[in-house]
């Protein structure tokens, strides 16, 4: 956990993150705040001065907005600060989906993808024969102006 954000800033950011990527309680998929995406954003901001400026401007405007953080609140930020919002949204998606546990919850392997990959069964030659039969039955579908064969048999 980094200290880039003050406690109130962090709380505000977490509330916004929960709006950006909401949870799916039925499938136990956490929202972006629960997935600690704010830590990822803080690290990005520390590594990239341009992004730090953008997220600071974004949070500063958010702090000045009245009312509870809900969809309308976030929509207002999107309208008022389109560039900063877009940068925060992009980094939020990156931070959230780079977590192996989140990947697994949306149906993709949690593991580093090499060397294990995924086991995928190969279709049998008989199956492929059957599937391609209508395509083969039509015969050639190419024009060959320089050789025999093809649609017009070389003509």
């Amino acid at each position, binding site marked *: 956990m980094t200290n880039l954000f003050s406690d109130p800033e962090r709380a505000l950011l977490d509330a916004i993150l929960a*709006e*950006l*990527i*909401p*949870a*799916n309680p039925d*499938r136990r*998929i956490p929202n972006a705040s629960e997935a600690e995406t704010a830590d990822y954003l803080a690290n990005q901001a520390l590594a990239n001065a341009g992004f730090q400026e953008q997220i600071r401007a974004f949070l500063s405007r958010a702090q000045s907005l009245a009312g509870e953080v809900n*969809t309308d609140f*976030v929509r207002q930020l999107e309208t008022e600060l389109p560039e900063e919002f*877009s940068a925060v*949204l*992009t980094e*939020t*998606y*990156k931070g959230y*989906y*780079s*977590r*192996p546990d*989140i*990947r697994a919850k*949306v*149906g*993709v392997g949690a593991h*580093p*993808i*090499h*060397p*294990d*990959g*995924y*086991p*995928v*069964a*190969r*279709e049998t*030659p008989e199956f*492929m024969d059957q*599937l*391609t039969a*209508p*395509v*083969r039955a*039509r*015969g*050639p*579908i*190419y*024009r*060959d*102006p*320089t*050789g025999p*064969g*093809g*649609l017009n048999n070389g003509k």
Partner: protein
Amino acid sequence: MANEPVDVLIVGAGASGAAIAWSLLETRMRILCLEQGDHLADKDFPSRREDYELARYGEFSCDPNVRNLKQDYPINSKDSCITPVNWNGVGGSTINFLGHWPRLRPSDFRTRSLDGVGEDWPVDYHTLAPFYDMNDAVTGVSGLGGNPAYPDYTPALPPIPIGKLGQTLAKGCNELGWHWWPSDVSILSQDHDGRQKCVNAGTCDLGCAAGAKGGTNFTYWPMLENAGVELRTNSRVREILIDEDTGFATGVLYHGADGQLHEQKAELVIVACNGVGTPRLLLNSKSKLFPDGLANRSGMVGKNLMFHPLTGVSGVFDEPMKGHEGPMACSILSQEFYESDPARGFARGYGLHSGRSTTPMTYALGGYGIDNPIPWGAEHREIMDTVYPYLAGFTVVAEDLPEEHNCVTLDPELTDSDGIPAPKITYKLGDNTRAMLKHGEARAAEILMAAGAKRVLTKGTDDVWWRAGWHQMGTCRMGNDPETSVVNGWGRSHDVKNLFIVDGSIFATAGAVNPTSTIQALALYVGDSIKTNIATLFD
């Protein structure tokens, strides 16, 4: 600083540079390859990391303007609707390419005679066929023989699984009576030649850590280096030098790993820098003899830039399509609309490539080749839960026609880290291409519905994918007429008799398939022609 002269100097260690070096091995000439990037060890491929997807947006982006690594050169694409993408290092763009491996078709070499558009090539399919076979044997190609879209040939290895996604889409094509076939891929479906088969990880753009993908870092280069070809990395060629009296190339000036400018002399110079890097280098090689750039008496260096503009259409199905399981390259390819049909209102045609779906982060950020994140909030949750896992789709890959105004020039201000002018791309989509993409979107939607999709998602705009500049062709085209082409029918410059070009810039037209199997077959053909004509090579 000067180095010992060599017989053959190849600039660029990518797909084409490796292939021609291999072809020339048997001549026992001294071969040197200068490459601006470096070797990349398998252990450094991001797919071994837990957060592997992040690399796609940073140091392993396909876009050199995003990666911004020392070996990259920036590309000014402000006047283009597509930006070129690549990899600069040993293996070139075969490091991050997807290994989709279709050949051009016989009609692609005769578009002017057959359809009144583009140009006829000075070579034909049947001349190249043995070189396709030769290259496939070195590269390791998987696929199914008997494809009625081509003269007969059979890939050496059985097809990779087309998976649930491919089977579903194939059934849709069958329902409509349209062509489809499992895609040829330069990806191993079984262990082969000491290399491991594909593990279906789906991260081919992040470098294949299994060694299953036929990048030249795994295929040609290990053989070449063992055989004594010198590969000098971190060596960026600034300019090709010319003898003003004889008009022959004498070698190059390059920035070496030590940061110094070196001269390298050679009897024969072969340029293999891809369709943007090659015209850039020639245009930067100015002399009294060639004030507008080397080998540019025709004025065609940099002109006729062609990409394969593309757009995507997806269907949402009832069951998970498991699109992330398997190599990213095409699972099946429909060439039903490849040949010209005047009734369609455009010349030439397109392919429908069934891309597999991407991983969650890439999907959330808008998909591969696009930067347009999906919505946030409740809609985000809905899409990720009820759309993303159920997707299967096609990309419509259009044949671009050569148009002179689509071009690569030198940017007057932007430079790379060595101060060499960067390329500037001026490119807009032709009306023919636009009509083709529209037609393709509608046909793709028909297949998806026939395959059982509940609904079809299209972008609803005319935009093409921004990072679809994977294939860069036409900028030093081949032809018989020195007035309208840069190299002859076997890759030799019309103007400079010991200068050859072997990358996609020599394509006369683009076809509607991925180009690398043809680029390498052509490079082997050029190599063969050099060997055949060796006694009179410079006449």
